[in-house]
């Protein structure tokens, strides 16, 4: 074979992650961006007026957990406590599911660790009938809409009570009553689909908006750009989020863009674009409310970079200590979203460590009881499983002859 002339090729840039195992992570100390730096523009603004918001960082809680600035949503204590409870529920639930995976009761699991505020705060800011097109790190939206935890666990197990009949891997929830679209493993596909759903809402003249998320890594996929462009052209009521959590399995975000900002991409599409502290419950709630108001007013799409850090592994199959410092999360200037809201609540006199411990125990009891109840319908290690006949149903609206023949051949 003829070998190429590699010596004449100037090596291209191959980005390396800033910190690898053995390094001490350094994100430059506390953020210089502060609450109050950025105004809350009128919802009728043009994309260009959000340039500072796309290049800056919208925060409400400062490093001392005090809320301020135009973006402060001024939620009452009851709403804040509800947000805290839902985030704690998600974390405790995730911990239980990971334990189930480790003991062979689930095949696989993905936690939202460190990113709990995203699904919880953003979904709380929506109407209850808005469409949700999640990636695999927004299952928490279901808690906001009151999905039964037993049902969620049954899905993850894939047992006889799994509403999607053991067909998908764990965490690929589907929940029609909650307008929560079945999660698909190929990353990013939901992003442009959400724009289509929003166009249909506009066509029908209903007041539903659609929200969707994908990760920094996934923003390299064509679907990300398809979604932004269709949203830019047709201006439907959609909220497009890229969750920049720094990592896509082992791939650092510097492989997803040669720049260092995801929010500013939206400006080039002519879409008002914001960049928000993804570990700040109040800021997330507020930017989503703003985007929802724009949708309701028929002003089209809003694009948001949610700036955060993936504190856990990509999934139960991943070991991040191979490719990043084991303690990198500890150095993230955004801290922990649950702790930040808790400290804020304590700061305003609406919460205490005692109440927090009591709530954690209550949630843990609920999760444990739900887990036990779910296992009565079967677990992965021991069954029972959905009947094999479910392989053949719902492939089409009605079972065609060739599929029916195969079902009879299996004889189950």
């Amino acid at each position: 074979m003829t070998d190429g002339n590699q010596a004449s090729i100037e090596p291209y840039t191959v980005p390396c992650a800033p910190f690898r195992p053995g390094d001490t992570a350094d994100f430059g100390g506390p953020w210089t961006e502060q609450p109050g730096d950025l105004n809350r523009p009128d919802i009728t603004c043009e994309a260009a007026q959000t340039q500072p918001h796309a290049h800056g960082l919208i925060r409400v809680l400062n490093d001392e957990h005090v809320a301020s600035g135009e973006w402060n949503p001024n939620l009452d204590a009851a709403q804040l406590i509800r947000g805290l409870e839902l985030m704690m529920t998600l974390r405790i639930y995730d911990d239980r599911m990971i334990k189930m995976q480790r003991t062979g009761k689930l095949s696989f699991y993905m936690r939202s660790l460190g990113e709990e505020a995203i699904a919880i705060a953003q979904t709380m800011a929506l109407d209850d009938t808005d469409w949700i097109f999640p990636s695999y790190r927004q299952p928490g939206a279901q808690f906001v809409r009151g999905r039964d935890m037993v049902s969620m666990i049954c899905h993850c197990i894939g047992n006889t009570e799994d509403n999607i009949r053991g067909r998908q891997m764990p965490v690929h929830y589907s929940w029609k009553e909650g307008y929560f679209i079945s999660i698909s493993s190929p990353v990013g596909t939901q992003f442009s689909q959400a724009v289509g759903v929003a166009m249909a809402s506009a066509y029908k003249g209903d007041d539903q908006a659609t929200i969707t998320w994908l990760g920094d890594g996934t923003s390299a996929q064509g679907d990300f750009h398809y979604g932004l462009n269709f949203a830019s052209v047709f201006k439907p009521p959609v909220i497009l989020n890229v969750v920049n959590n720094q990592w896509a399995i082992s791939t650092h975000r510097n492989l997803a863009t040669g720049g260092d900002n995801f929010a500013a991409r939206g400006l080039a599409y002519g879409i008002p674009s914001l960049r928000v502290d993804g570990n700040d419950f109040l800021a997330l709630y507020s930017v989503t409310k703003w985007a929802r108001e724009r949708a309701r007013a028929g002003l089209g799409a809003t694009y948001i970079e949610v700036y955060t850090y993936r504190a856990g592994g990509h999934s139960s199959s991943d070991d991040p200590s191979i490719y990043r410092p084991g303690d990198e999360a500890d150095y993230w200037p955004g801290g922990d979203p649950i702790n930040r809201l808790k400290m804020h609540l304590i700061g305003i006199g609406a919460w205490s460590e005692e109440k927090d411990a009591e709530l954690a125990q209550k949630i843990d009891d609920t999760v444990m009881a739900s887990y036990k109840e779910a296992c009565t319908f079967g677990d992965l290690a021991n069954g029972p499983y959905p009947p094999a006949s479910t392989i053949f149903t719902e492939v089409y609206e009605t079972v065609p002859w060739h599929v029916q023949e195969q079902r009879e051949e299996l004889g189950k």
Partner: protein
Amino acid sequence: MTEMNMIQSLNSALDSLLTKHDNVVIFGEDVGYFGGVFRVTAGLQEKHGPHRVFDAPLAEGGIAAIAFGMGLNGLRPVAEIQFADYIFPAYDQIVNEVAKLRHRSGGEFSTPVTFRTPAGGGIKGGHHHSQSPEAQFTHTPGLKVVYCSNPTNAKGLLTSAIECNDPVIFFEPKRCYRGPFYGDPHNVPTWKGHPEADVPDGYFSMPLEQANIVREGSACTVIAWGAMVHVAQKGIEESGIDAELIDLQTLLPWDRDTVVESAKKTGRVVIVHEAPKTSGFGAEMSASIQERCFWHLESPILRVTGWDTPFPHTTEWDYLPSPARIAAAIKKTQEA
């Protein structure tokens, strides 16, 4: 010779080619520093440099297009698609572009790309980590399609795929990365002690387009590829019938001569694949075999395949061809 599992033997093939040819480059999602989610490229970036083994952005369509361009311009790219289920964003680039470049340019241009991709079920991967989409590529003129089944042919065939001047889709049965799979999820051995786990060190190639007769027999011809080779072997044992087992190894262009010769000898044929039955590669083989062996056949050609449904999660053992289903088909061919 060194005893290796399939991950190690694939790694060894890539290592030897990076050493032998300075125009070989490897890229894909998580393949660089991390060494791949299945660890197939572990250590290669450190050894051969970041511009030869590197992470790609998460964009299969982009990965295929970049491979097209690099291959066109003198490099020999080996692109990993993390799961075969994720190859579809790259389908346009592979089917319309990579596969047809040589022909559409009147032979002026070509691109010797290899796409490696883990395929097949048996790991509780559900719809999107279990499919075996070989037939979606055997229907594409201009591609070669290879499906390895053990550590030795994984290394030998991957070497030939990379050195091939035509584009190759190289399927790796992920269920067999760490051991052969005989269809029993409760008893999964490692490759330790398996004869095909003794893999030649250094550079080692095996010819494409040649099937391997795994087991000689006289009463029936069983044809399989990937993980199903091992399941078929178990099925033959369970049937108690003296069947010949052919590991097809290359699906396009396939080794028709070996298959036809065997079919003429036994007069009975069972084809096994994980992918759905309808329009699966078994259909193509069945048609070709009857065209050439009609007067030699003693019974209808049978197929044991995945069902014409999406691949399930918890019920995957009822989806995948089992030794029992294969044994039943072999026995059925004896009835005529």
